[in-house]
């Protein structure tokens, strides 16, 4: 398999369709990243040596709740599962009350709260819509809304060891494990 560096000429427009990691200029095709050249169905692309994460439908992501409104929570995304690398700026993701859990949820703030770290699945790429309906998905770390101390799991609810406050969340099965 051929290894190319950025700027290497790898063909012309008439030969192939430009795929990932390829750019076209004046009818010629050049590699934009270093990696192996792959040709599939007339589409030529470069398999890069390092992948810049791109969020697609179905990906599992890690984020932090930065705002909770009536029916929607806004999430700042930080990582895509499987890649330990910063995401490019895609804007805020949205978690709608109907996608939080399988049962009816009356109040969104009894499922997620400000500053919670959540694990969620992307159900729509446009507008970055998230879902936490699976058991694995949901809050993996939360702080007490009164004293901001880290909350510990106590059965189905979270308990604050500092002030004794008890709060409800849509908990992930990974809550408090420190991994996701």
């Amino acid at each position: 398999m051929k290894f190319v560096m950025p700027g290497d000429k790898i063909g012309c427009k008439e030969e192939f369709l430009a795929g990932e990691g390829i750019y076209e200029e004046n009818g010629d095709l050049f590699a934009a990243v270093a990696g192996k050249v792959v040709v599939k169905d007339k589409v030529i692309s470069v398999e890069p040596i390092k992948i810049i994460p791109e969020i697609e439908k179905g990906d599992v992501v890690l984020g932090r709740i930065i705002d909770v409104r009536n029916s929607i929570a806004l999430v700042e995304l930080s990582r895509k599962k499987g890649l330990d690398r910063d995401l490019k700026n895609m804007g805020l993701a949205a978690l709608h009350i109907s996608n939080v859990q399988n049962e009816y949820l009356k109040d969104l703030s009894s499922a997620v709260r400000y500053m919670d770290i959540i694990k969620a699945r992307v159900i729509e790429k446009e507008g970055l819509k998230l879902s936490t309906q699976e058991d694995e998905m949901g809050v993996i770390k939360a702080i007490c809304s009164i004293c901001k101390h880290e909350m510990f799991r106590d059965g189905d609810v979270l308990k604050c060891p500092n002030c004794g406050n008890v709060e409800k969340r849509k908990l992930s099965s990974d809550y408090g494990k420190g991994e996701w």
Partner: protein
Amino acid sequence: MSESNEEKKDEIQLIFGDKRLDGRRFDELRNIKIEAGILKRADGSCYLEMGKNIVVAAVYGPREVHPRHLQNPSKAVIRYRYNMAPFSVEERKRPGPDRRSVEISKVSREALEAVIMKELFPRSGIDIFVEVLQADAGSRTACLNAASVALVDAGVPMKGMITSVAVAKADGVMVLDPMKEEDNYGEADIPFAFLIRGGKIESIALLQMDGRVTKDELREAFKLAKKGAMEIYKLQKEAIMKKYISESVENG
């Protein structure tokens, strides 16, 4: 170092027949060692030795830019920091940015902005940090070479590669890749950076000059720099391939 102090009193002889002070030919580069991907937490990194210059480059991103008002809705912002360690020069350098390093950061950033495909990452930023651990003339060129390899290592899409080399005029002769003595006692110093695409030099991404040269001397300098840049480009390519190939062997 004590020898050069004694000679500092007066001008020193830099050219001996067809050889230079350190025994190199006029068109000969210093020894170059490049290693890609040396920093674990950086998205892309590079260690580079160019003669007595030692630099480390790290690339982070594309990632979110803070503060927010610096974001550009149509393309990525590139940030380049050239920084010299206090111990990188003979006399301790006061740490932190100064007039010189701010200028070098600016011109180097502009050279790299010409090759990075910024329009692919709107509202994001790519941060490039280059630290000079040991300086011996032409550290900005060493930094650009290291930054270029680090960017490729990070997988940032680029139109081509940036390769940089300096030419100096010492004792009336144009010499490639000057070391400290030639830079300090020579008549001129001209750092070049080229955009290399398709294995050929396509354009000049950076050109500075300190001192004075004639038109013909500049042409001569350009010729020398092109020759040196192609040699460096080969080494940059090897560094990336070496890392990539050893990695694919480990992973089966």
